[in-house]
């Protein structure tokens, strides 16, 4: 039973993958687990698809854990997946959303890195691919997308934590997502969840030029974070990546936006100001609960504003 997992704890990859099966078993008419490919070290990559039927419905993408040391991100993904499944049928808004749209969740976007943080280096951020001509391993999977690839805010050095990789989509973990999004062709929203520093961002990162939809994305972001803040008072900043953090090329939501997915956002989840990537597990459920309010706002907006 899904009741046997403790959502207020961090888990290994095996436990998370096994839990996905129990979720599918518990909600067989809503949830399916799909393998979208393998990681560099040959681990399967699974998305949970929430769908009430129909073919090629408009869809929302949510990924968590692309940076492996940001543990609260997949932990929030786990709670969120369970929330979506358990609230379907009782939450009228979520039910109407799932009656018209599908939700895809990739809870472990960087499985090799995640395992590595559990076994070898808790502070590992990147993938685990070998870099030709270097002893340093891994690529920053959020600098590897075909969006201003190799531009500002990404490193050319394989030893850097922000190494962009040899070419766009060189990382199989990135390519698997790109292939799925492209072959599906009907994603309307792309949300990437990181940690920490309490930000809700929209494109671009590879340039400080405003996107055409800046006003709308900013307004959605502000309304979403207002709901998030209403729960525990957690303060979020909203803006485009370039201005709110720094120029960062090759990011996932820049790619998704340039692919035509207008409602592209990236979260940086909460930090108490004392723990950084070591956010204590008793913060997982509060983080997930407040994040859900913002996520739900964005998803409802996407549902109500077809394009």
């Amino acid at each position: 039973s899904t009741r046997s997992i403790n959502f207020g704890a961090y888990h290994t990859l095996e436990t998370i993958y096994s839990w996905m099966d129990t979720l599918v078993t518990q909600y067989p008419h809503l949830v399916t687990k799909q393998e979208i490919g393998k990681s560099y070290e040959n681990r399967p990559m699974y998305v949970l698809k929430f769908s009430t039927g129909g073919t090629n419905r408009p869809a929302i993408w949510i990924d968590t854990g692309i940076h492996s040391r940001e543990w609260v991100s997949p932990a929030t993904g786990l709670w969120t997946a369970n929330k979506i499944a358990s609230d379907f049928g009782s939450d009228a808004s979520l039910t109407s959303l799932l009656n018209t749209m599908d939700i895809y969740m990739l809870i472990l976007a960087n499985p090799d890195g995640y395992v590595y943080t559990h076994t070898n280096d808790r502070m590992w951020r990147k993938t685990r691919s070998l870099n030709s001509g270097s002893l340093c391993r891994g690529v920053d999977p959020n600098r590897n997308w075909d969006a201003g690839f190799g531009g500002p805010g990404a490193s050319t050095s394989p030893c850097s934590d922000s190494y962009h990789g040899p070419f766009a989509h060189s990382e199989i973990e990135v390519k698997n997502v790109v292939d799925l999004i492209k072959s599906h062709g009907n994603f309307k929203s792309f949300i990437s969840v990181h940690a920490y520093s309490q930000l809700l961002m929209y494109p671009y990162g590879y340039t400080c030029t405003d996107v055409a939809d800046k006003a709308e994305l900013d307004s959605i972001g502000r309304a979403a974070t207002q709901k998030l803040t209403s729960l525990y008072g957690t303060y979020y900043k909203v803006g485009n990546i370039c201005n709110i953090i720094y120029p960062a090329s090759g990011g996932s939501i820049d790619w998704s936006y340039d692919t035509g997915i207008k409602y592209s956002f990236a979260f940086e989840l909460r930090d108490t100001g004392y723990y950084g990537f070591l956010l204590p597990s008793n913060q997982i459920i509060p983080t997930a609960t407040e994040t859900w309010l913002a996520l739900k706002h964005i998803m409802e907006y996407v549902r109500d504003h077809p394009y």
Partner: protein
Amino acid sequence: ERTFVGDQVLRITLQSQEQLRVLQSLEHEEEWQLDFWLHPVSTDLPVDIRVPSSSLSTIKEFLLTHNIPFTVIIENLQELIDMEKTEMEENQKKKQ
């Protein structure tokens, strides 16, 4: 398994553009093996840096020399990692 005994995480609240520039110059300093958890981007956002124990005295001296105030938000990173690991192991045992 890599350990982080004695590594500290410093939080720096920047007060001027000059301090921002100084911190940004540190990002290219490879010798001290600094791990920027939050990068120096503006005076509005804090900067968090994981400093290996071997570079602690040097970096603290550097900050003091440049009148850049900081606080230690994690005294010993390995202690937190050990606590996290213990908790996970206990959860696993309970589950079994």
